[in-house]
């Protein structure tokens, strides 16, 4: 200790202390700093891959630089959330022209989708892909989600998200099989006929409540077979087919049995 005390006035002591402090700070930061999400680590490599994929698969309609062509929207500024929604649900690349792009088996894996998103996002800023926490249904309030869904979504998507018709062959799809992330992204980006529900309109927490409500619907009905959750029409069809079918069948049997 004596040696240390003797040298603490050495003129290089502050430098050594500074180095030590930096080392500690750096070590603590390295240990505690949040790891960056994979989606956000955008490398120029990704952007290059994305650009090539875009030019091979998307540019025919959306233009060589995603500037859009007649009747096809520009993708500058739509953000990675829109790309991830459209590509991961298989809506894009579009299978065929029609009233609206249909869901189909996805054409790009997660890596290529991320590269495409990176490229589009490099053209102009837009809504980001939500984090896992933002779409975690267990953290949402289903009751609040239902109230929000009823006032904002049910008029097209049906009371529990079974889907509904829009004009001229367009439709609001059923949400029973849509992933939590895609539901969130759809609200954020407003694909096709759907309006955009930005974060000022429905806050991220409220969006998560809606996701929680929709996930809750997948557990089925307390009353038995949900019959598609389509309401009185499907109930009526089943009443005639199953109910009256069984009863008339029984009546024919009783009437045919001679004593």
């Amino acid at each position: 200790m004596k040696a240390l005390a003797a040298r603490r006035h050495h003129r290089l002591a502050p430098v050594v202390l500074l180095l030590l402090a930096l080392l500690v700070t750096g070590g603590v930061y390295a240990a505690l700093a949040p790891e960056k999400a994979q989606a956000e680590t955008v490398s120029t490599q990704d952007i290059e891959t994305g650009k090539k994929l875009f030019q091979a698969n998307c540019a025919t309609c959306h233009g060589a630089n995603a500037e859009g062509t007649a009747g096809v929207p520009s993708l500058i500024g739509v953000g990675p959330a829109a790309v991830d929604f459209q590509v991961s649900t298989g809506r894009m690349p579009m299978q065929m022209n029609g009233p609206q792009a249909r869901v189909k088996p996805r054409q790009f894996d997660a890596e290529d989708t991320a590269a495409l998103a990176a490229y589009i996002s490099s053209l102009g800023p837009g809504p980001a892909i939500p984090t896992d926490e933002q779409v975690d249904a267990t953290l949402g309030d289903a009751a609040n989600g239902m109230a929000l869904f009823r006032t904002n979504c049910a008029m097209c998507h049906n009371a529990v998200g079974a889907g509904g018709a829009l004009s001229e062959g367009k439709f609001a799809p059923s949400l029973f099989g849509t992933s939590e992330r895609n539901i969130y992204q759809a609200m954020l980006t407003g694909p096709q006929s759907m309006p955009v529900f930005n974060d000022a309109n429905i806050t991220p927490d409220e969006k998560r409540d809606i996701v929680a409500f929709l996930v809750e619907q997948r557990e089925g009905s307390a009353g038995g077979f949900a019959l598609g959750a389509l309401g009185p029409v499907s109930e009526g069809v089943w009443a005639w087919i199953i109910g009256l079918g069984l009863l008339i069948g029984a009546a024919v049997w009783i009437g045919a049995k001679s004593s």
Partner: protein
Amino acid sequence: MSTAHDTTTTAAAAPAPTTRTGKAADYLDQRTGIGGVVKEFARKVFPDHWSFMLGEMALYSFIALLISGVFLTMFFEPSMALTQFEGEYPATATGQTVSVAYASTLEMSFEVRGGLLMRQVHHWSALIFMASIVVHMMRVFFTGAFRKPRELNWLVGFTLLILGLAAGFSGYSLPDDVLSGNGLRITDGVVKSIPLIGSYMSYMIFGGEFPGEHIIPRLFTVHILLVPALIVALIALHLFLMVLHKHTQFPGGGRTDKNVVGYPALPVYVAKMTGNFFIVFGVLVLMGATMAINNVWNYGPYDPSPVSAGAQPDWYMLFLEGSLRLMPGQGTEWVIFGYTLPLNVLIPAVVVPGILFTFLIVYPFLEARVTGDKREHHVLDRPRNVPVRTALGVAFLSDFILLAAAGSNDLIATHFGMSINEITWVYRILFFLLPVAAFVVTKRLCLGLQRKDRELVLHGHESGRIVRYANGEYVEVHTPLDDQERWMRVNYDAPAPLEIEPKMDARGVKRKGYGADKRWQGLSRFFYEDRVEPVTPAQLAAAHSHGDHDALEAGGQQAAPAAVGSGSTTGTDSQEH
């Protein structure tokens, strides 16, 4: 009539009963004279046919409605006061501000043991009740069971149908959820569309501006007191008249307007009816136990602002929904001297059902008038033998089904990948074309079937046996029909159009009432101009004696003319009127 009443007096002379049941029955009989009633009813004969059980199905589902409904009233609170829903289930309702009616519906479904089962049994029973009424009514219509003396009972049945609609509608609205509230809002709009008095009536019904705070308690009274009491009373009348008239029967050998051929109530028919009751009840409970219906917690508590996609009424109201959906909105709302005449609501929601219901009310009387028929009928018509009636029924039915499909146009669009706008336009055109096409096709089918019957009676079944004569000629041998088969095909009326007195009377003056007669004759021609007359005995004899190949079958048929229309009773009981 049977001689049941005579036997009660002779009961005293009979040896005293020895069994316990016998003693109890005797005790009761000596004090109430119930033996006569039992004897009368035990021997009452019912004809056997599955379609005669359709009305029973309606009755039994009504009993299921009464039983499950009584259970539901124990837990339902008809109040529109607001409350905080405190229950844990369903999670989507916890903490929400809802009406007491809605909260009590949820509590009944999730807290009360068997409550959800009872609710679902009640709702399925309602759907089946209306469906069996409609099918029963179709049976009565197409077989002409509404003819004299049963016209009044047809009207009683029609009133029951309307009361069934009223019961269904009032009950559907009670849980105070978004979907039923949407239905009430449409009702409000329809009431308001009635010229001059509409808005006053709406204020009267809702006790102020829609939705107010009175409609649920009011509908509750209508649903659990007024309508069921009327239904019970009219069912009693319906059944009383049925017993009084005796049951109709399908045509067949030995069956005439003067008898009923079938099985006695005891032991046969009571067993069948009891069995049918348990089957109906079993099916209803099975449906209630396994198939979700009207999960009101999916729709949420009523609030006038939201309407969700796929908002439709129960099936029996769907034709009204469809009629509203088909009606074009532009240019159909007229303002005359400051009064709005909303034809876009008035026509689809008042005029269209008005036409259907008027048709159902007047048809029995109309048909009797154009047939000039005042006889009693207890033997049913085969639908083919009255082509225009059958065709009219199918025409109305086709439009009813079309309107129900129009009420589901959004679901048809999404499930079949079509454009809702195009579906709507196709339905608008079909609304006018389909009944005409259905009428023409059905009438032609009926006439064709009648001609086929005629052909069969005259020439018999093709046997598939080819015989070659010595001279090289080939003929196919036809097997003659047996008596039962022939009876069914020849024993019907093919009335001719009305004949009216000439325009001028004996003194050459134009007769009063000629114009009206002429119009009735025109309508009668519409009904009976095209007809296929039944084969007469003379025609049958001629058919059997002419021609070469018929000689082959003539052997066993010498008595043919006499056999036509004679028929014979098959080993069943027969009761004279």
